[in-house]
């Protein structure tokens, strides 16, 4: 018995607060206006609090003389005609749940990312592989239409539901006229912005979206070419980079650029000296990976963020512009910028000459006194007084080489470099290089990350740690965040 046609089934997956409910109501109105039955259901529950939520709609043409159709309340595998998702990982989730059938389902998705909590809390880069999800979605959908709807609707000053409506209309998968869609938007709030976003999304989807998935294509731009020198420092240093293997040109160039600005040409020369040491122990066969990564982490470490560095960064000429752009305010509106600083006695001590700084840290009386006068404060960096104070602090970089902090950092840098250069085993050396990634943060975070790195370096020096694999395990344990337990457990495992 199969008379009377079938329902057209549509699944919407959105994130809490993205307007999935509004989108559903538009679709109900459009169907109604077009003489179709529409039944929708949703799972609200606690999903509106940042979780993923699913809406399910079934459509059926109204036929005079026929009773109401019996429509399902459950999206079912193998029974979905259209899946509309607001974000690419949610498209992937629908694929993984079996809702995308290769012989049936048109998948329409925005392909931007909204990161999940586990991706965000990672101490390094825990983000999902977007290309993998894109290629999977393309492989399992009968048709896959995708483009960045988030960026698009932002330009039109509205929210993603309007873009999703445009995409589903433009893809031509629903039996309703463009006018019916537009009328629903015209009746609602923010009609002008919604209609213009709808229109662009409609056209984009009608042309297949970006639509083409080519995971094989490389995302990298053209090969890096060293620029011509424009300054005296450039004339002196660029030739030294030029003689290095081309594979490390870009990283080394960026490193030198950073360190010249951070300190001076001599400091950059010290850096180049170490990079040359890396090259000497590296090989063409490995693509000079050790040098490239070593040059990266060394440059970042050498440009460690002490008080003068933070002050220098806060004074960058491009900063105000960047801030306004990100906040999305015009030149006209005054901004008040209060920055959160919390210098501790350790940071102050690190500015002092070695002996004095050390003495300060040892004296509990002085520690207390300094801590009491410092502490947490908010500084209005848009004011002239604070700007001048920051300029003074930034200028202290000229005497940085005499500071306790500089000495302290270099003791650690040298230990790390020494472990790499004397590792013997190139795989072990490469793993030690990678440990440079651990160096991060300020204050207690910085203390934690460097202490753990030094523990690994010491372990290698004392031959307690001998294999590259162990270093790798310790590193990932060390990068699990604030809790001491994972790293301690990995260390304990070492002695068994």
């Amino acid at each position, binding site marked *: 018995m199969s008379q009377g046609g079938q329902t057209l089934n549509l699944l919407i997956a959105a994130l809490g607060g993205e307007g999935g409910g509004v989108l559903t109501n538009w679709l109900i109105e459009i169907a109604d206006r077009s003489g179709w039955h529409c039944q929708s259901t949703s799972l609200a*529950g606690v999903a509106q609090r940042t979780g993923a939520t699913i809406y399910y709609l079934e459509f059926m043409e109204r036929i005079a003389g026929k009773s*109401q159709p019996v429509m*399902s309340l459950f999206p079912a*595998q193998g029974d979905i005609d259209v899946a509309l998702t607001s974000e690419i*990982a949610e498209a992937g989730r629908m694929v993984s749940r079996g809702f995308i059938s290769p012989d049936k389902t048109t998948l329409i998705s925005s392909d931007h990312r909204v990161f999940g909590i586990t991706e965000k809390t990672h101490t390094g880069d825990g983000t999902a592989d977007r290309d993998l999800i894109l290629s999977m979605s393309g*492989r399992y959908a009968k048709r896959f239409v995708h483009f960045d709807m988030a960026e698009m609707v932002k330009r039109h000053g509205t929210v993603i539901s309007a873009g999703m409506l445009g995409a589903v209309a433009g893809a031509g998968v629903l039996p309703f006229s463009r006018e019916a869609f537009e009328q629903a938007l015209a009746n609602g709030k923010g009609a002008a912005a919604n209609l213009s976003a709808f229109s662009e999304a409609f056209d984009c989807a009608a042309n297949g979206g970006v639509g083409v998935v080519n995971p094989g294509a490389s995302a990298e731009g053209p090969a890096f070419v060293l620029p011509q020198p424009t300054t005296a420092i450039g004339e002196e240093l660029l030739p030294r980079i030029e003689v290095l293997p081309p594979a490390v040109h870009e990283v080394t160039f960026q490193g030198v650029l950073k360190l*010249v600005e951070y300190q001076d040409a001599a400091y950059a020369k010290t850096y180049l000296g170490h990079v040359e040491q890396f090259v000497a122990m590296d090989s063409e066969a490995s693509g000079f990976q050790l040098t490239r990564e070593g040059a990266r982490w060394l440059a970042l470490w050498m440009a460690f963020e002490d008080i003068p560095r933070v002050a220098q*960064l806060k004074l960058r000429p491009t900063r105000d512009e960047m801030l306004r752009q990100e906040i999305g305010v015009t030149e006209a509106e005054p901004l008040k910028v209060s920055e959160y600083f919390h210098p501790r006695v350790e940071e102050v001590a690190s500015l002092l000459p070695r002996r004095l700084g050390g003495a300060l840290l040892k004296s509990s009386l002085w520690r207390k006194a300094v801590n009491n006068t410092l502490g947490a404060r908010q500084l209005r960096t848009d004011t002239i007084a604070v700007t001048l104070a920051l300029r003074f602090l930034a200028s202290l970089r000229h005497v940085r080489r005499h500071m306790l902090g500089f000495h302290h950092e270099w003791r650690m840098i040298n230990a790390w470099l020494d472990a790499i250069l004397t590792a013997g085993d190139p795989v072990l050396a490469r793993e030690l290089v990678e440990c440079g990634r651990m160096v*991060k943060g300020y204050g207690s975070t910085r203390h934690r990350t460097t202490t753990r790195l030094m523990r690994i370096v010491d372990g290698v020096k004392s031959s307690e740690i001998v294999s590259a694999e162990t270093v790798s395990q310790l590193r990932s344990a060390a990068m699990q965040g604030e809790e001491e337990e994972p790293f301690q457990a990995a260390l304990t495992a070492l002695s068994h």
Partner: protein
Amino acid sequence: MAERSFVEEVKKLRSAQGELFKGEGILAITKALLQSGVSYVGGYQGSPISHLMDVLNDAQDILGELGVHFEASGSEATAAAMLSASINYPLRGAVTWKSTVGTNVASDALSNLASAGVTGGAMVIVGEDYGEGSSIMQERSYAFAMKAQMWLLDPRPNLTSIVDMVEKGFELSEASNTPIFYMMRIRGCHVTGEFEARDNVPPAYSNKAPVSPYREPEKIILPPFVYAQEREKIAERLPAAINFIKQQKLNEFFAGRYEQVGIITCGGSYNTVIRALERQGLADVYGNSDIPIYCLNVAYPLIPDELVEFCVGKQQVLVLEEGQPEYIEQGVQTILRRQDVQTRVFGKDIMPMAGEYTGQVMLEGITRFLEACSGAAIPLQLDSDAVKALETPVSEEDIAELMSSLPPRPAGLCTGCPERPLFSAIKQLQAELGPFHISSDIGCHSFATAAPFNLGNTIMGYGLSLASSSGVRHTLPHKAISIMGDGGFWHNGLSSGVTSAVFNGHDGLLIIIDNGYSAATGGQDIPSLVEPNLIATTLDADRPKRDQWQPIEDACRGAGVKWLRTVSTYNIEAMKDTLRSALTSAEPGLKVVIAEGECMLNRQRRVKPMIKQAISSGKRVEKARFYIDPETCTGDHGCIRISGCPSLTIKENPDPLRLDPVSHVDNSCVGCGVCGTNAHSAVLCPSFARVNVVHNPTALDRVLDGFRRRVRGWLRNRDRQRLERYSL
């Protein structure tokens, strides 16, 4: 002021006879109650029936016109006790709650109501929170219906059936003097559709038409009447109900040409059954089926005559009911065996014992059933293997790869949530004092048990956190810590928790999170709500208090609490100090910390229009949001681990050398300041800034800003020149 406003939708409740009513299941039920002439309604919010309470709340003028009395009950027990109005008087009344949790809370009143019996129709609309999207432990309300002898309606999930069954339900209740459970599943609550409206009926008795007080001692639940009531349940009420259900044809028979088999389904699953049959080529979209179906719109009690009539001559039937134990299947077996009907009954032997009957589960089950049926072969479009294959078109390797890269999206605290800084403070304090055992509760704060806070060990029920720390407190190395919301406090926490703890010399710490609303269920008002909210961090803190404000503080003092502090959650340092002193205090007795901060969802809904209006009317307004300096951020994301705010996210690192993404505040930031305060309190980094945008600046603002910009611009130009030299 609830999260979702139904002010527009409730206008539909005035629909008159013959008008086509289009809307959500929840709204249809409200309309059906008005069409049934209810005299009073009440309930306690909770998914999936929160919106029913919101609709009733927003429909107060319509209710008032009709003379319908509405109360937002203090708990499900309060709501259930309301139904006692129908014991002596022919008053129709309905209450609603989330089940089975609400039914558990209400059970004492319900049992007594069911024993006494009712004169007027009494109905409990239970939102059966079972299956995907549920937020509670998985149990069936069915068990309660059986043990207390209340009838359980489970109508087909289309609006016409839903509305009809409400009206018929009241009649059934009155015909059998028995209160009714009316069960709505999650998806049924939110289903949209249409039905033909009837006129609203004003209640026979109301404030406009009072009853004459009247006593029936035999309806009081004391001996000897309770024994008579138990006999009456079996001898009179059950037969009356069975007769009414048969006569009024509340259950439905759908004929089909394969008469040797049949499907017995609960009404709520009917649509899923039809879809499965349709996909097998055995039904059409209008519900015409080749397989005979007996649809139980009344899931309890079962009607022996109807069952026998359906099964006689059939070789096999399949019984479809979600969850366990398989009460209906057992009932069917008993009835058929007693009547010596030898039809083979399939049920949980081929259907899953636990979990929802989703589209895929139903298709698999029905396919297995039809394949197992003997007799003339029933042609199927898909065999069991083909159906099984539908579930996962994705290859095993691809599934594994996808699963390892897809981020989970657990529910969490909203952007700017006042509870976030509290948990940041507790997390910092835990780092200082050692690991905590925390008794948690129901509410938004339950999310603190998940990442990134990972705080909390047990959840025993609404308002029961303090009670649940009483058995473990003597063995803990620290003073017991219990966290409770204001909703839970008023629901149950004051009596079961605070009063009992003070009485027993509990010397632990109770943190009561006062955000002004029952936030997790959709922002409904609670007794301690101040309107507009009088909370330390609120813009309009000098507004007057609500009439008859019921402060938590006074309630605690009244219950004998001596040590009591109120702290704004946004003040992390003060919170840490207060909690530390509570945990280390030598003073005996319960320590209560009221952690204040208005629910940010509600606050934004309230404040946003005010700000917008102020800006457009030319007033000077400073609007704050936060910013992370991408150049000083090193990408450790410690700020996210300590907060987890949705607006705190990550983006590509602008530094070409760095590989890890930097933290980033997106445009959804509401400027609550927690990330900055955390940066201070946990000594994180110098990357956080609060940026105040000055809208409609005054002349002084402009002069000062212009001067600052000129001087800083001049300095910047000098820096630019220097930077050009320090380049390559």
